């Protein structure tokens, strides 16, 4: 038992990644809800908007799924992240860790999810082209739900 415990501790020590230096990365652009809505209205294609925060546990769990979805559907669907109630260094650390390589905005006051009526964090919002809100998923999203809603956007959203 002691050997097993020692093994787990050594494994943890070896695998625990330290903080990455993100000081050379640009801050996430801050936007108001009105500016964000105007940005969506200009989009010619459907959009998936994920509301996240670095302190949010479920956001960590769904981040790899969103990354996979972006890699698969990024040429058809716009993926946008909205970081809420967070700090810039923590947000950049989170993005470095999960490599979410799409546009992210900074919303310290949570104005954007409040504007669209989302509850809690994370939230995933699905928009048809030109910013028409199609559906909202409150809470962590699983692969089937994300895939189904993306398919719905692909069938009807453009």
């Amino acid at each position, binding site marked *: 038992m002691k050997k097993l415990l020692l093994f787990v501790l050594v494994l943890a020590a070896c695998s625990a990644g330290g903080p990455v230096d993100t000081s050379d990365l640009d801050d996430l652009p801050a936007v108001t809800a009105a500016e964000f809505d105007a940005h969506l209205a200009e989009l010619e294609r459907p959009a998936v908007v994920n509301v996240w925060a670095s302190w949010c*546990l*479920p956001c960590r*769990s769904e981040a790899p799924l969103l990354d996979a979805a972006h890699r698969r559907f990024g040429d058809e669907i716009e993926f946008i992240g909205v970081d809420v109630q967070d700090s810039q260094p923590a947000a950049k650390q989170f993005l470095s860790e999960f490599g979410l390589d799409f546009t992210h905005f900074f919303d310290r006051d949570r104005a954007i999810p409040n504007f669209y009526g989302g509850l809690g964090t994370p939230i995933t919002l699905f928009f048809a082209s030109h910013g028409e809100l199609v559906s909202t998923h409150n809470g*962590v999203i699983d692969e089937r739900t994300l*895939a*189904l809603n993306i398919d719905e956007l692909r069938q*009807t959203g453009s």
Partner: protein
Amino acid sequence: MEFTLLWAVLTAVALTWLGLRIWPDSVPEGGFDRLLGGGMAGLLVGRVTAMTLQGINPITSPADLIVIRGGVHTGAATIAFIAVLSWSTRSTRDALDALAPAILLGLAGWHAGCLWRGACLGIPGDLPWAWALEGSNVTRHPVEIYAAVGLAAAAWLVSSLDRRVWLRAGTALAAAAAIRLLTEPLRPSITGGPTLWYWAGVVAGLTVVVAGWRLRRPTVTAPT
């Protein structure tokens, strides 16, 4: 906090319990508890495996374990479930055969639990029983209902098989994997789904059936 996933799990547990009452022959003592134990072990191992594959360290981020929606690895969960169940029933030779129909019915309950979760629909289809997401005019196959019906039918089929060693257990594994494999193309997917694991399940189930059949063959000894 949403509880739809919990309702789906409770539906699976309830139908497993019902299955043990419909098909009680040779069920080992504490069969329901053993199934629950196996299920919990499968969930834990499947979640840890999924986290590891997603690049989330389960040791340094143990709290992520409870975010079940983040993903549970089907193959690892199934192996852990079967391993724990086999270990816990090792003193009863035909325990897995006796429990197999109830397990299939429980799986059917899990898929039917999509009704609580609002997650029954798959790819677009225009069959008479297809329906659409709320606010949409795109009708879709209720793929999880297909899977639930298939698994319930498989439970009945397996329960009617002979009580030969591993015949029911192997057939149940192959049937469950085959039903998931057949319905997978009807599910929208991001990662492609664990089809390789479903194939492995079919092969493993059929192998178990053959192995059981060979075990029961009378030994022919050469004349001396």
